[in-house]
């Protein structure tokens, strides 16, 4: 594989992503809303105002306390029980656990935007044909495209994480006397699960967009990736299935194995001739 060719393709795609406002603005807005503004607003109002202990919320106290007491993870249960108010309990639980799916959603949607555009986009601009006429291997083309999709998704997600950690801790530290987000669970999530998940999603999308006819079809397939995250939201919210560091490590490893499997599929199905005959008319 020729590094110069891979970097030329990756740089070209990165430039295309960041030169089109229609592409990069939504990629920034989504994490800004979900991962920065929303948790900041939630913690501020949860901790600084009495919304959570208003009269209406009082009715909720019983079922919430019952939920906490039956919580499967004992450390978490003890911490939650020890917190003095319902507001603090809700904010603490939300920041530690319910935020995880938000980061997953941002990573998935952003990587879907860039990757589903990769092959289908070249095809729609009639440039895929020219690229296949060039002395580059299909593997070089794939790797260049995967890198170009991976970098913005991961960098944006990391940036959102750092900003979120700084802002939320400024708001919440006086109440909890502990630094949130800088723990094994979150660090494994950010630096192990998110990169492998994004890579998996991108490779899957690049594979799919090299097989389907149009950009829309590629996005339809990519949309399916959101489903497991919905499952995680439900399980986190119910406390039924808990994302412990070990579970997160296993999920990341699962994605890594999935990546190896997809790469094998790519090399098997995407010979230049097969790609050309299926994509160029």
């Amino acid at each position, binding site marked *: 594989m*020729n590094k*110069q*060719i891979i970097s*030329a*393709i990756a740089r*070209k795609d990165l*430039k*295309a992503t960041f*030169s*089109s406002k229609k592409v990069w603005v939504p990629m920034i807005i989504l994490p800004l809303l979900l991962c920065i503004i929303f948790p900041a607003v939630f913690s501020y109002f949860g901790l600084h105002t009495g919304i959570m202990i208003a009269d209406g919320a009082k009715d909720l106290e019983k079922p919430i306390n019952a939920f906490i007491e039956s919580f499967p993870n004992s450390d978490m249960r003890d911490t939650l029980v020890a917190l003095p108010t319902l507001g603090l309990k809700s904010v603490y639980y939300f920041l530690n656990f319910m935020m995880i799916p938000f980061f997953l959603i941002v990573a998935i949607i952003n990587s879907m935007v860039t990757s589903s555009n990769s092959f289908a986009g070249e095809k729609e*601009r*009639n*440039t895929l*044909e*020219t*690229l*296949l*006429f*060039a*002395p*580059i*291997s299909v593997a070089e083309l794939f790797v260049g495209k995967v890198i170009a999709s991976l970098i913005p998704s991961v960098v944006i997600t990391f940036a959102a994480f750092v900003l979120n950690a700084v802002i939320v801790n400024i708001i919440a530290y006086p109440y909890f006397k502990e630094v949130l987000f800088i723990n094994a669970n979150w660090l494994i999530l950010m630096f192990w699960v998110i990169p492998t998940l994004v890579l998996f999603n991108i490779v899957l999308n690049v594979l799919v967009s090299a097989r389907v006819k149009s950009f829309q079809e590629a996005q339809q397939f990519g949309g399916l990736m959101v489903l497991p995250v919905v499952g995680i939201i439900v399980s986190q919210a119910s406390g039924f299935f808990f994302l412990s560091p070990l579970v997160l490590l296993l999920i990341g490893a699962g994605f890594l194995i999935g990546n190896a499997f997809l790469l094998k599929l790519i090399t098997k199905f995407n010979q*230049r*001739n097969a790609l*050309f*005959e299926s994509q160029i008319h």
Partner: protein
Amino acid sequence: MENIGESLPKEIKLGGILVGLDIVEALGVEKEFAGRPILRDVSFTIREGSINGLLGPNGAGKTTMIRLLNGVIDATSGTMKVMDYDPKTHGDEIRKRAGIVTESAALYHDMSAWDNLVFFSRVYNAYDPKRIRQLLQQFEMLDKKDQLVGTFSTGMKKRITLAKALLHKPRLLFLDEPTNGLDPEGINDVIHYLKQVNEEEKVTIVICSHVLHQLETICDSFLFLNGGRIIEKGTRSELEDKYLSEIKLMVETGLQPADSRNFLGYPYIRVSPTQLEFTLAAKEEITRLLQGILNESWVHSCEITNRSLEALYFKIRGESHE
């Protein structure tokens, strides 16, 4: 295998080394898509340094032939050699040495002309700003190098595509319908640039087209493809010798022959008060006819009207159907 230029030697000696002159050889090439034959028993050779027209109606298999020669799709059967490489096994070696202008201007519209060329030169492992500048200058696009390709006219895009195809100094250049969508001026420009590239850089050129009259002046030899078969091939003069059984000569003259159908034994019809169309058996008779006319009147122009590529093409097609 038959050569396009039968009279040319198959090999020449350069400094005591035997050099093959055929840059492309195809023998019995067949291609099927989903059981439907696209090319059938196609055999031809192309001389290094020549400009070749691959002509035929839409769907004749011209584009498929170019793709096969570049190894981006595989032939069902038959053998090919392009610059001594087999497209099936050594496609990348061919693609390193061949340039392509596909039918649609395959450029990135959101990038400038310069950035497009830099990208493709890196893809071809041939990044050289001097070469890019030289090509932009040659195709008169240097002053627009920083403009987005999306803002260019079809003709300008075509020139950038042509520059793109020449970045890596190819030995062989394929062009698929290079004049499609161009205005007459754009067509003339492309023909002019192609001649220049062929002469200055000694690039062998293969042009696919269904618009025949544009290629008349530029091509050295022709391949006629129809329904996936090569129905005729040869140089212009070879084709004329074979298919011109009579000469139609249009003469602009003040001649008023006494006989309303014959002059000096040559039949004619009057097209306008100053134009007569003569039918002759051979080109050799033109001189005698003109001498006879000049003895009696003036001549402002004379032209063989049935030797155009288009006329030859229809004749060839007609005969191949019989």
